């Protein structure tokens, strides 16, 4: 649709507050021939239990409903894989449901668990996601991912999903990047940053100490995107436990408030029609009146340059929790950096920067843990986990990993969860000698964007420390 009714723009109002109690992750890797999928999921759940000083058996006693995120049955060659995992976790005969929204599967799995708690159906729910993309040859894996595009109109064109993104990268570079070499370097800086942060993460599959030149000289995947602009293909699992207030405080002294909203847009970029920009609280209609003059072609919204689904998810979520300006009200974000270009697009969709000015979030240094221009803490650090580019993209788990990573900062336990020597050893990874604790000091609120396809589904998750909940929302 290109116009909205008032009912469609209703800001969700939940019946009760929902809390994130704990979360856990497995190791992430390109392949794990030594483990079955259930073993990876149990690793994630065991970490979640340990995080609140419980055994898995104790944690399971609280769970009433289970949501399982698993993007592609094809990859595991197992229909109803959710049922296999549910059984192996020993959670039968509790109600469970599989969730599939492509790359946003993890976020959507949390969205479902959130609504279950808010409605009162359950007091405590499990949201678990996983993917294993190692059980087919890589080119067949690329084909399977391309089957998430329109199989009649797009998939036969190369069977390569990166290509469907690359046309957006090309257009964005032309319109908002003005085809400047400096813009291309800014894209590359994101890859350098995220792979560098991944070095501090024992879970991460793709840590690298690289330069902008390394990114610009890496092999072309789909022009203008190069190999180091692109996310990883991963195996791994992540999970979270959501609960109502009473149950959450029975389980831990430190639950976090959690709220989610979702948006969607056409599966095919081809089907996007022109429309007015739905405005976030920190935007005005007037500021975009001359967008097409400042950036020729930029007045075609969302065109090939924006993600309407991300805009709508944040449109609902910000108003649900009372966010006026994400840069001021949040302390960190985890974004879906499937590609460096889509990371920049998302800065604009979620209002960190106005449309057309996403690059300044990187160039200002605001997106870094420590601003490289000033040496001071970054204003709004992004993807300290390493993101999809440096940490992992085990699709069904990705959105959950992002939420747990944000949570660990607000819990002030990021250093503990990433610096533990025993974990580095258990994952058979060497802790860097220059390992740095990326804990965002005093983090009170954070955001995670889970994103599918070329923007078909997006969820926006807001985590808040319960002592620092914003006012002005609907909750």
């Amino acid at each position, binding site marked *: *649709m290109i116009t909205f009714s008032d009912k469609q723009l209703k800001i969700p109002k939940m019946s009760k507050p929902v809390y994130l109690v704990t979360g856990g992750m497995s190791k992430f890797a390109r392949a794990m021939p030594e483990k079955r999928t259930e073993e990876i999921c149990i690793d994630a759940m065991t970490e979640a239990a340990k995080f609140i000083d419980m055994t898995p058996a104790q944690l399971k006693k609280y769970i009433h409903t289970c949501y399982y995120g698993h993007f592609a049955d094809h990859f595991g060659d197992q229909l109803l894989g959710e049922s296999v995992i549910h059984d192996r976790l020993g959670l039968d005969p509790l109600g469970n449901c599989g969730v599939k929204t492509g790359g946003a599967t993890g976020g959507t799995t949390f969205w479902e668990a959130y609504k279950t708690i808010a409605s009162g159906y359950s007091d405590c729910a499990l949201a678990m996601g996983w993917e294993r993309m190692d059980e087919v040859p890589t080119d067949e894996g*690329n084909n399977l991912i391309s089957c998430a595009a329109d199989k009649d109109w797009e998939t036969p064109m190369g069977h*390569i999903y990166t*290509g469907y993104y690359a046309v957006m990268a*090309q257009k964005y570079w032309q319109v908002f990047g003005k085809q400047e070499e400096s813009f291309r370097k800014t894209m590359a800086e994101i890859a350098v940053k995220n792979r560098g942060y991944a070095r501090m993460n024992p879970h991460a599959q793709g840590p690298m100490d690289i330069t902008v030149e390394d990114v610009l000289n890496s092999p072309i995947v789909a022009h203008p995107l190069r190999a180091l602009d692109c996310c990883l293909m991963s195996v791994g699992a992540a999970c979270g436990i959501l609960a109502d207030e009473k149950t959450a405080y029975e389980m831990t002294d430190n639950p976090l408030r959690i709220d989610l909203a979702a948006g969607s847009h056409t599966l095919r970029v081809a089907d996007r*029609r022109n429309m007015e920009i739905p405005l976030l609280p920190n935007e005005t209609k007037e500021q975009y009146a001359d967008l097409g003059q400042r950036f020729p072609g930029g007045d075609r919204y969302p065109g090939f340059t924006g993600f309407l689904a991300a805009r709508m998810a944040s449109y609902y979520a910000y108003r649900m929790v009372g966010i006026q300006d994400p840069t001021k009200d949040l302390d960190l974000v985890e974004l879906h950096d499937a590609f460096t270009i889509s990371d920049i697009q998302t800065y604009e969709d979620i209002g960190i920067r106005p449309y057309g000015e996403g690059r300044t979030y990187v160039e200002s240094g605001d997106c870094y843990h420590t601003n490289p221009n000033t040496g001071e803490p970054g204003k709004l650090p992004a993807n300290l986990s390493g993101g999809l580019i440096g940490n992992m993209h085990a699709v069904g788990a990705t959105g959950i990993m992002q939420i747990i990573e944000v949570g660990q900062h607000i819990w002030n336990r990021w250093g503990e969860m990433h610096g533990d020597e025993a974990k580095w050893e258990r994952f058979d990874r060497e802790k860097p000698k220059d390992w740095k604790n990326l804990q965002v000091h005093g983090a009170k609120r954070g955001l995670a964007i889970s994103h599918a396809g070329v923007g078909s589904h997006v969820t926006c998750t807001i985590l808040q420390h319960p002592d620092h909940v914003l006012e002005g929302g609907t909750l």
Partner: protein
Amino acid sequence: MKMEHKASAEEDSKRGTVKVVNGRYKPSGLFHFISPNTPIKDETGKLMGITNPRDMTFIHSYGGEAIFFESMGLGKLMASRCDNPDCESKGSIFMPFRIHCPDCLFKNTVVDITERAKKNAIVHSFMITERTGAFNTLPTPIKFVNVEFEGVCTILMGALIRGEPKIGMRVVPIFKTKNPDYIITDMLWVPADWPTEDLPEGYTY
């Protein structure tokens, strides 16, 4: 690592076909080419798993889009238009073809936009890739072009098979009128005024 095996003419000749008879699919011939599992072992010979080879043929309906896929083989580009007088999108022309209007859900009218495409199609965006997923049939490097048509509210993705893509360039569709495959690649794109004698085998303007 090249892992593809292209089926031989003999293997293809054994593959089954499907017809619709009395409203039901009627497959005939061979459909499942069975190969044995093989073990996966580590360097020490320890069993880690197995391969599961499989050959499957999906049977897929084009439904209301069949006219689009059939028309390409006849050298025609068929779009669809919402003609519901009460719809906020009345008059919108859709390419990709949409069977129903996304706003009112009325059934769209099929419209022929072949001449429009030949006269005023331009490249909105593009990309070039050497890499493909398994089962790709297009020659590499693949050049995608997103094609804008005058008066059409959406932007079609296609493959440019000749020349180099550039944003804003005029392109023209060509159609596989000889032995069509009835898939989207029955229509490819070439720069405007590309010589007829240099079109791919089986394709015509």
